[in-house]
């Protein structure tokens, strides 16, 4: 069962996000709420793809928006609000991994239990997430998640992850193939 969602952000959305950031810089809470609605999925998904733990990703999402609130005045408009936002998410995620001592092992059973408590998460979602978290390498997961959720182009993803474009392209196509295979087995 697919629920139809629109790839975000829609074209031209950058200008809207910048307008949000401008209002946030002046202390407009409504704008923060609007920004949250527009980007929460991307921020959470990207955080999850880096920290590989639902609870940690939730904390990162929270901290990201608190930091946006405090730091929106320092945003310099260059038409890349999403990249700016995700850089905050990435920095927070890396900090967390560093503090945790970069534990690379991910306990999927623990994650599954956590997702099971969320009523919105369907059985199919769990297979989807299992494939993402367990079957992919870190870079593959981050690249495919960013491309699906953020509207960033491969080139921008390369800049955000500090990877060569060629790496991003190959990670992306490998991730797609691996996910197709993993989900086929899971479904």
């Amino acid at each position, binding site marked *: 069962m*697919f*629920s139809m*969602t629109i*790839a*975000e952000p829609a074209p031209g959305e950058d*200008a809207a996000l*910048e*307008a949000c950031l*401008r*209002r946030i*810089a*002046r*202390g407009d*809470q409504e704008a*923060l*709420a609007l920004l*949250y*609605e527009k980007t*929460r*999925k991307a921020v*959470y*998904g990207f955080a*999850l793809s880096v920290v590989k733990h*639902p609870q940690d990703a*939730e904390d990162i*999402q*929270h901290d990201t*928006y*608190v930091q946006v*609130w*405090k730091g929106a*005045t320092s945003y*310099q*408009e*260059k038409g890349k609000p999403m990249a700016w936002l995700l850089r905050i998410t990435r920095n927070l995620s890396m900090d967390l991994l560093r503090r945790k001592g970069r534990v690379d092992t991910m306990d999927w059973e623990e994650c599954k239990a956590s*997702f099971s408590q*969320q009523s*919105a*998460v*369907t059985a*199919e*979602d769990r297979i*989807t*997430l299992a494939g*993402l978290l367990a079957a992919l390498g870190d870079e593959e997961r981050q690249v*495919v*998640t960013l*491309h*699906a*959720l953020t509207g960033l182009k491969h080139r921008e993803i390369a800049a955000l992850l*500090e*990877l*060569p*474009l*060629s*790496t991003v392209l190959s990670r992306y196509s490998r991730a*797609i*193939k691996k*996910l*197709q295979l993993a989900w086929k087995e899971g479904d």
Partner: protein
Amino acid sequence: MTQFHTEHADEAVEERIRAAMEHAAPSQLDRILAECTVTASQQPSLQVVTPSRRRRRWAPLAAAAALAIVCGLFFVGQYRGANAVASVVSLDVNPSIQIDVNQKERVLSVLALNSEAEDVLADMDLQGTQLNVAVNAIVGSLLQHGYLSSLSSAILISVEDQDVQRADRIQTELTTEVDAALQNAAAGAAVLSQVVTQDAALESQAAASSISVGKAALIQQVQAANPQLDFDALAALSVEELSQMQRTGATAMPIGRAAAAAAAQAYAGLTERDIYEWEVDPELDKTPPYYEVELETAYGELEYDVDAYTGQVLKGRADVAKTGTPQTSSGGQSGGGDAQITRDEAMEIALKDAGISTGTAQGLRCVLDWDDGQSIYEVEFRSDGVEYEYEISAVDGDILKMERDGEEWGSSSASDDGYIGQETAKEATLAHAGVSASQVYDWECQLDRDDGRALYEIEFKAGGREYEYEIDAASGAVWKAESDYDD
């Protein structure tokens, strides 16, 4: 079994990821909002649109066309309520212009706040036109009057309106519009914009200093870092100087552009007669803050960095009149009066540095030129599909600039994660420049991609010279090395 990899397959996979994240992403807006209250850090702030690398071509055609259209327009009719001022927009470069518009964003009046603005507005009749059309026309006229062309200039757009959302929208629209007009005209100015809250005290202060409320608001932000700074003295500074001071929280009064130019002129030992043109670019957000002064003189083009607070010359040639020879009036191709080495020697130096024999170099060219107050040889050639460009000092044979551009890149692009890192790039750069790490200041290093290859773009200063390097991020090879002449 063959797995077909198609865009359709990509989209299906991505759709599934989106659905899962939609369901899994927590909703914690309330928790976030509870922690986000208005603090002192939420000050009104300046939005900056930095100019992308526009070329300094001088062709304000599009803007001039807009101006022509507007000059032919007349104010036709009005209706009840339309005369109430809804928003006040001000434009500040050096000329300060105030535009009052009604709620339909039609222009009620345009006011020149200083004499430069009077020249710019001349006999334009903008009353009754739509705000964006009027702003376009004014920008066109600013360009025609020689403002906004250089990279060192900036235009400040300020919107004053009680309706915050409308102010916001107008700010965004005008910023986009003006930026596009500048892009079209290939002008280099930066666009700054802000929303200003109405403040009677600020308005009277602005009027007293013949500046717009927008510029006054910017000055107020600068004064926040040091209330001792004099309002009128700040009002005399350009919008760009003020915005740099505001960004860095400057606490002292800079000497200003004219004084910086005068300091450079004195240092060069030149009289006003020797100087054809000068341009000053404030760099008040650098450490230390300075003015970059470009003098076009009888002795060629000279560049100086002048400390923004002490007026001391940090970089540039002293006493040019004693050591240099005035150029003839035959244009840029003259020079060579102080040439000590021959063309053949210059070519030999370049080829030797590139490790290429005369026989294998194709398209070898060597031209004697005059740059930055000295004679140089520009040497160009190709070998194995790589283009080389050298600038060799004609006085002592020093390599002032080296650049090579490959044609076969992409196939042998950097391996995954195989970058040498900024530290190694720094070592390679300093070794090439023959500079020790302790001498280096203003170090900037950025990983960038150009034509499919990854490069560290590096800029730094040492021993009174300014260096620019490009280091291959995978191999550490030096792709570009440039250093500015200085004494």
